[in-house]
């Protein structure tokens, strides 16, 4: 009984935040705190990951790029998810905050995709012996990057905000179907992973490293939310 009333309360809060004015006041109050939290987390997370974790038996210190690479890749995909859900909610319920979230998620996702691609290439050079292979996973990330670019360009190209919101939402919905079905199809035809990438290192089983990875993921989320909030403060409701 108590838990249902609590979840109902949260649900009400959720829809109350759908009011742009309420949301802007709320996010404005949180933004300074989040900024400091981001600086703190990003600094401590990266220093911890790069300097205070042991080397891998086989990969040496190269493995440490994982603390940047994996969270960035997760955030890249989740950015798309946020964009998709925000667009869907905008088309169904016409709440400006949701499409605003979708708009703010795109640059975050694109940047994270770029970071994931770059760190992956830097890791790949000593491990695979090459910066880049045309493996389905890598290819689909590159295509996701291009798709983010197209989404952002469409926002920028259309003058009327409501038209732009509608058209980009349609694009985000279609893109999920066509773009993200592609890696699935590729794996059907080419199920073997790229050479040299066979599962995880032994140390992955250790709880400590697990926690380290969760921490670095939380850092990426925090950075992402912060960027999205600061993007949304320069939004089109201001005028």
């Amino acid at each position, binding site marked *: 009984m108590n838990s249902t009333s609590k979840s109902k309360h949260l649900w009400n809060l959720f829809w109350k935040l759908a009011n742009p004015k309420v949301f802007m006041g709320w996010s404005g109050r949180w933004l300074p705190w989040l900024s400091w939290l981001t600086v703190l987390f990003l600094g401590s997370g990266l220093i911890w990951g790069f300097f205070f974790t042991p080397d891998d038996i086989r990969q040496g210190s190269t493995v440490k790029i994982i603390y940047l690479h994996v969270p960035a890749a997760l955030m890249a995909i989740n950015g798309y998810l946020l964009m998709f859900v925000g667009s869907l909610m905008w088309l169904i319920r016409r709440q400006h905050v949701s499409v605003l979230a979708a708009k703010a998620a795109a640059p975050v996702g694109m940047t994270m995709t770029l970071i994931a691609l770059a760190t992956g290439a830097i890791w790949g050079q000593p491990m695979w012996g090459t910066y880049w292979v045309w493996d389905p996973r890598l290819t689909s990330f590159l295509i996701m990057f291009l798709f983010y670019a197209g989404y952002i*360009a*469409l926002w920028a*190209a259309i003058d009327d905000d409501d038209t732009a919101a509608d058209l980009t939402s349609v694009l985000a919905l279609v893109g999920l179907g066509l773009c993200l079905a592609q890696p699935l199809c590729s794996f059907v035809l080419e199920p073997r992973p790229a050479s040299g990438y066979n599962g995880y290192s032994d140390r992955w089983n250790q709880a400590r490293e697990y926690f380290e990875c969760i921490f670095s993921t939380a850092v990426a989320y925090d950075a992402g939310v912060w960027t999205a909030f600061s993007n949304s403060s320069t939004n089109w409701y201001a005028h």
Partner: protein
Amino acid sequence: MISVLAVRSGGGFGLALVFFLIVVVLIPLGLGPDQSTLALVAPGLLWLGALLACLLSLDRIFGLDYEDGSLDLLATSPLPLEAVYIAKAAAHWLTTGLPLALAAPLLGVLLNLSFDAGKAMCFSLLLGTPALSLIGAFGATLTLGVKRGGLLLSLLVLPLYVPTLIFGARAVRSASLGQAFDVPLIIVLAISLGTVAILPFASGAALRINLR
């Protein structure tokens, strides 16, 4: 009817085909005339050429009709905008995709493509170009109100073309190596069927948004 109009609207019909021919002529000039190299790269480059030729005429699909107001007339007609989109995409396919698919095996001869691979080329383009036209026409509905939206249109459409290109070119590559090519061909067909099932609704919505 719309197909006839698409042919007569000037430049669209022959242009894509001639562009395709020029691309095929330029490839050996850039790569060198070595026959084995040409046969190796021919499947992918022919698909790429067809894709670019398709891209060339996309902003024509709705552009003129939007400017002179015919699209508003079509929107007020009893035909739903989803059907208008399908008719437009079909017209685009009949004037670019179909001629490209029929011409590709002939142009493949210039690139030392074997007879079997040429056959696979024709099949894969026949099955794949409907998806190219449908996705392209969808992109055209999105960029309808954008002035000089050609570049934006390519940026939106090309990432969506990737799956079709991958499997279409793979079918031809498999055929040129003497392997079975039915699986990629079926996937290409699946992509075309998937787009014809989903995209009319997305494009109808985009047309309505642009016309309001």
